[in-house]
């Protein structure tokens, strides 16, 4: 059974946002990493790139397939998780601890359109 964490915001496309002040940490859920299998590469944007809610910002890749990443929120990338460049498998070890990008949120009202843990858990069944 995939893990779901309380207090995060979830998108239908299986990304999460952990909000800290004006910033959001975006990653893929435990369910998503389990479905994908061993992650061998993470395609990430660069610092200062803009991301838009619902639009693609990168990809997580298994041996066999690339899966697009969709940003649950809009904003500016202020940090990318560089540890994933050398150790993409960290996502399999702990998808919630190993976020992919940190974004300065441009519109916090977008969070209202995302799911809470209970709602997300329901769609993973």
């Amino acid at each position, binding site marked *: 059974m995939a893990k779901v964490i309380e207090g995060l915001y979830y998108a239908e496309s299986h990304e999460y946002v952990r909000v800290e002040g004006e910033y959001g940490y975006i990653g893929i859920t435990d369910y998503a990493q389990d479905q994908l299998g*061993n992650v*061998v590469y993470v395609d990430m944007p660069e610092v200062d790139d803009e991301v838009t809610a619902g639009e693609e910002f990168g990809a997580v890749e*298994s041996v066999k397939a690339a899966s697009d990443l969709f940003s649950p929120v809009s904003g500016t990338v202020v940090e990318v998780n560089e540890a994933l460049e050398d150790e993409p498998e960290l996502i399999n070890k702990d998808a919630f601890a190993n976020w992919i990008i940190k974004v300065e949120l441009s519109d916090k009202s977008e969070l209202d359109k995302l799911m809470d843990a209970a709602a997300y858990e329901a769609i993973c069944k």
Partner: protein
Amino acid sequence: MSDKRTCLYERHIKLGAKMVSFGGFEMPIQYTDITDEHVAVRTACGVFDVSHMGEVLVTGRESERFVQHIFTNDVAGAPVGKIFYGMMLHPNGGTIDDLLVYKEGNERFFLVINAANIDKDYAWISEQAKAFDCVTENQSEYYGQLAVQGPKAETVVEKVLGLPCAELVFYTFKKMMVGDETIIISRTGYTGEDGFEIYASHALIQQMWDKLIESGEAKPCGLGCRDTLRFEVGLPLYGDELTDELSPLEAGLGMFVKMDKEEFVGKDALTQLKAEGLTRKIVGIELEGRAIPRHGYEVVADDKVIGNVTTGYNSISTGKSVCMALLDINYAKLDTPVQVRIHKKLQPGKVIKKRFYEKSYKK
């Protein structure tokens, strides 16, 4: 049209395999993990269900002349027990399929063809055979097939299956009796490792599969690692590196096309292609970074698209991101700098030999 199932389908499900559609069959892509299965074949032994492959038997007085007519390699005067790899071509030089030809006798040849092409191939083969004194029979429904691959394959086949195979050299086969059934065992494969392929009835294939799995000596391996294994050693997959529109010369497989043969379908087109010079070719590309080039991605140089990726991976054995690609011939020379467009970004790399890992066949 729904996918067919092989005689091992229930066993794959029981082992928890992830199933996918491939070549008109519902096949296991992996049981546990592509990387683990890949490594098992490189270092020990893996077993693949390749029962989806097609088999056609050609018999009769003009069998050899007929095979020479439809096949690019040269089987003339070969000893019984020898196997040839080559292609069947359209008259325009495009590739109908790549296949193995087993010489069972002077008037008996066994053809092994790709699952996805069985209907197309057999229609072509039976049509072409009308002009020859020979009989063709599509035996694809009868045969199941296992591939036992890896450095320990010989020991596993001899000890676990009790089939003596040590004396077989690479690309030879023998027929043998198991109970009251004749089976075919060959020293062939599609992984770049030593190994064997076994053709038998569904019942016997099921028994052999069970023995192999129960012994723990052969890891069940899916089509996922079959593709990463064949790719690393530069072997083509029909549909990626060979197509109806692409000739074996452009695919870099000229050594399996015997242009000095008197005649074969497609020879005139290839002769002309050679005279005019190739305009495109399949090459290897190694990227500097880890981004993964995949089938269809654009290859760019001098600000223009010069071709497309046919197969690409982050190589499990070497850790490098590499691909095969069909490129404009002007960019096909070794060390030519090229870029692959991956998720909108251009990733730098260069042309290399399309063998990313050395084969270790037992000759």
